[in-house]
């Protein structure tokens, strides 16, 4: 189908496009005989198209038209250039000639304005810098105090811990009381298993067959925390 439509189009659209006879310069590149990416045919590779013959009258006429066009364009360009030069000369913007005294006065005025600006900005800057310095001092002070507090707290915690350890060191097991400690441990087996019910009662021990009594038994304690 594609091929058929291709032939159809080449028959109708191509002659009009190629000749340029239609109102608009349109040349289809899609429905050609061969795709665009194919190279020039080998037989046409070294073919040099013949140049169009120009008669002597035609050539002289074209030359005349060309010369005329170039001359006119050159004159217009020259006119515009001269106009710019004339404008520059007559306008006063760039051509104020000042005496040295006037120049000096103007320079001094500029210096004055600059100095006032600088003074104003310096004042603002000094204020800003002073404020920043104050803020920074306050910040550092705050951090230092916080650090001191932290250190104190840490020291206190450490002291507490040391005291606690000293207290618990009385119950440490040494070589002397090792035998006795092992005896006691073997004699008293412990069980950390426990169950807990909704009322917060604690049932110690491994056996789950305990039934909660109306009176709290020895292995049943209310949860303190």
């Amino acid at each position, binding site marked *: 189908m594609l091929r058929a439509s291709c032939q159809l189009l080449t028959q109708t659209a191509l002659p009009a496009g190629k000749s340029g006879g239609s109102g608009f310069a349109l040349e289809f590149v899609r429905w050609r005989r061969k795709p665009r990416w194919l190279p020039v045919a080998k037989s046409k590779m070294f073919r040099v198209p013949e140049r169009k013959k120009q008669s002597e009258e035609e050539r002289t006429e074209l030359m005349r038209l060309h010369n005329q066009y170039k001359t006119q364009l050159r004159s217009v360009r020259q006119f515009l250039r001269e106009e710019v030069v004339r404008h520059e000369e007559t306008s006063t913007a760039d051509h104020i000639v000042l005496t040295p005294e006037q120049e000096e006065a103007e320079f001094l005025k500029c210096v004055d304005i600059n100095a006032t600006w600088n003074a104003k900005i310096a004042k603002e800057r000094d204020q800003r810098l002073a404020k920043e310095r104050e803020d920074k001092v306050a910040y550092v002070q705050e951090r230092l105090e916080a650090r001191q507090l932290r250190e104190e707290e840490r020291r206190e915690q450490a002291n507490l811990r040391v005291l606690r350890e000293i207290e*618990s060191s009385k*119950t*440490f*097991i*040494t*070589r002397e009381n*090792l*035998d006795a*400690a*092992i*005896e*006691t*441990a*073997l004699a*008293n*087996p*412990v*069980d950390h298993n426990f169950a807990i019910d909704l009322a917060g009662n604690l049932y110690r021990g491994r056996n789950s067959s305990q039934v909660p009594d109306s009176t709290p038994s020895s292995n049943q304690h209310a949860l303190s925390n």
Partner: protein
Amino acid sequence: MPSYELALVLRQLPRNELMSVIKRTAESILDKGGIIRKLENMGSRALPHKVSEDGLVHREGTHFTIAFDTAPTKIADLKEEFGRDIDIIRRYIFKLEEPEQQPCTLHEEMLPPAYRKDVQQLIEAAKKNQKKKYNYNSGLDYYPFQK
């Protein structure tokens, strides 16, 4: 020195031999410069599965824990030493850490969602991402943006 807990599973032994095993273990800790805080006997009990150790099959074991302090560099030595002991079926060393303090926040969590702090934070975060809406009663009688 950090605190550790040694959990031992010992094979079924008569009492005096059991004592000697525990004493051996405790003394090896003391020899390495450790401190023994507590000894606990968890009793003899059937093992959860049969265990083959050193050519013997064990179905029951005596559970024993030793709470001790020692230098962390000595832990590997201790493990190695307990590993060579044929009366010890299983040995585990745990680091004891301070229990984490978690205050009870149940009364806050039971509040209706609008009063909960985390929900309020979520709403704030969502508001930040919301696109700004045009206020229709701002005096203009037409919508100034593209619809």
